[in-house]
């Protein structure tokens, strides 16, 4: 429950092309937020979608469909509506952290770039799609080897965790990647905090649309960040999701 839970128009002040398919939209309104929290982003007349905050006044968007496409087409001084911030954010209780960003999943991790307790792994399909790697000291991998190591992030993570230096892995990215990364964490017996995605309507825990099986854990309110204990319980994690109608579809 925020003071104001309906989207309020705000002006876009800058748009940055980050990769061929990812743009960062910087807006006027500033949020007091915890890294990992998200906002509901309203494109008037079209739709409203969840987006993690990549800074106090920006979101970083991958163009995947109608709404994200409309966001990519916007120009400074255009207006979007925002409400939030929602969700829990990363708890970061542990001190020796490995952060793993896959594709545009690096966006919600960006607010942690200044955290000196974190070692970074950033991966993407190819060199062009690597997000924010210029901005920090990070291990890099690509599926096609066009930059950094030719490997999945899970391979790098496995190697890092083997050093025994870490007590927490945080991550965001495609759910299949997260599922595999979680296996690695479990093998090394290291706690995980992963940011998940499910179809959202209300964003504040009343429509139930984002609830996951079998516990009814709600991504919008209890998440989007789930820790190992929760991930172990969520039988649908990495397996299936529910669409806009509420129908089950495999990932």
């Amino acid at each position, binding site marked *: 429950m925020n003071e104001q839970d309906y989207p309020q128009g*705000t002006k876009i002040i800058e748009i940055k092309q980050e990769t061929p398919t990812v743009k960062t939209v910087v807006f006027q309104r500033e949020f007091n937020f915890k890294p990992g929290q998200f906002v509901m982003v309203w494109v*008037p007349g079209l739709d*409203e*979608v969840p987006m993690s905050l990549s800074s106090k006044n920006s979101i970083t968007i991958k163009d995947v469909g109608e709404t994200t496409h409309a966001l990519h087409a916007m120009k400074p001084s255009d207006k979007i509506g925002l409400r939030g911030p929602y969700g829990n954010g990363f708890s970061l209780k542990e001190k020796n952290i490995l952060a793993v960003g896959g594709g545009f999943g690096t966006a919600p991790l960006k607010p942690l770039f200044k955290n000196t307790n974190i070692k970074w792994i950033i991966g993407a399909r190819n060199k062009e799609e690597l997000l924010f790697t210029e901005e920090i000291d990070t291990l890099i991998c690509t599926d096609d080897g066009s930059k950094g190591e030719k490997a999945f992030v899970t391979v790098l993570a496995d190697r890092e965790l083997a050093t025994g230096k870490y007590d927490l892995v945080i991550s965001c990215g495609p759910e299949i990647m997260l599922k595999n990364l979680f296996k690695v964490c479990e093998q090394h017996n290291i706690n995980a905090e992963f940011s998940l995605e499910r179809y959202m309507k209300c964003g504040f825990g*009343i429509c139930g649309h984002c609830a996951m099986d*079998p516990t009814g854990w709600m991504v919008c309110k209890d998440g989007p960040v789930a820790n190992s204990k929760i991930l172990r319980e969520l039988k649908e994690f990495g397996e299936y999701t529910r669409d806009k*109608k509420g129908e089950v579809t495999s990932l």
Partner: protein
Amino acid sequence: MLKTKLAGIKLKNPTVLCSGILGTSAAILKRVERNGAGALTLKSIGPQPREGHNNPTVIAYESGLLNAVGLSTPGYKNMEEEWKELQDIKIPVIASIYGGSIEEFVEIAEFVAEKKPSMIELNISCPNTKKHGQLFGFEPDVAGEVVSKVKAVSKVPIMPKLTPNTPKLKEVAKACEDAGADAIAAINTVGPGMIIDIETAKPILHFKTGGLSGPAIRPIAVRCVYDIYETVNIPILGMGGITNGKDAMEVLMAGANAVGIGSATYYRGIEAFSLVSQELETLMKEQGYTNIKEITGTAHE
């Protein structure tokens, strides 16, 4: 002391999850059960798979919520897995259904009755689609026809859910009773209303308008339950803005036998069910009530 009955169905406490709130999957319904609800209502089930409206579909303003979810539904035929999961639930489960025609109501009711829910709620009052719902609840004769036709095919009790947005509320309630309804649920959302974002000069909800719920509408819910209680003899599931034990007691006094909890989950989380029950119990003890029956309808004396 919180036990109550609704059309013969026993509830361990009078708090019932409202349709459309958290009612999308068996998993979340079980979580509501664990949080102390007396009964659960499923999200309204419709004839065909339906996406509902684009977002924003649910927003909050300073006095309540506005929603125009647009009756998103997987369709009544695509829920076998869900029905199976629902078997584990120990408290009564109410299936809510809607149709675009009386025939559709009958078709779905017949199918759903086979799944043996404790009751079927007829959503003849949803203001959020242009074709479906609302019209059925505006006029006594139409409401009565839906009820009697559904009643003919259903072995489980039938509870039409009424809209407060008709000047003919009492007449509609009477027609439902006469047509054989076993209970009445009231109220569905009020209005509809609209909120415009002044920065973009655009209505915020994608459907432009949406029904009001939450604290703002409580006095309207109380009045409707009061009026219905004066008109019919079947039990009433009262809802609309009930957020704490005091509100629950007010709606019981107006004439309800059990109370729906919906938007309260926005204000108080899923804990709303056990919190409202506890608060109600405390108030009952303070005032010397020993069971819910003693409270129902006292405001009419």
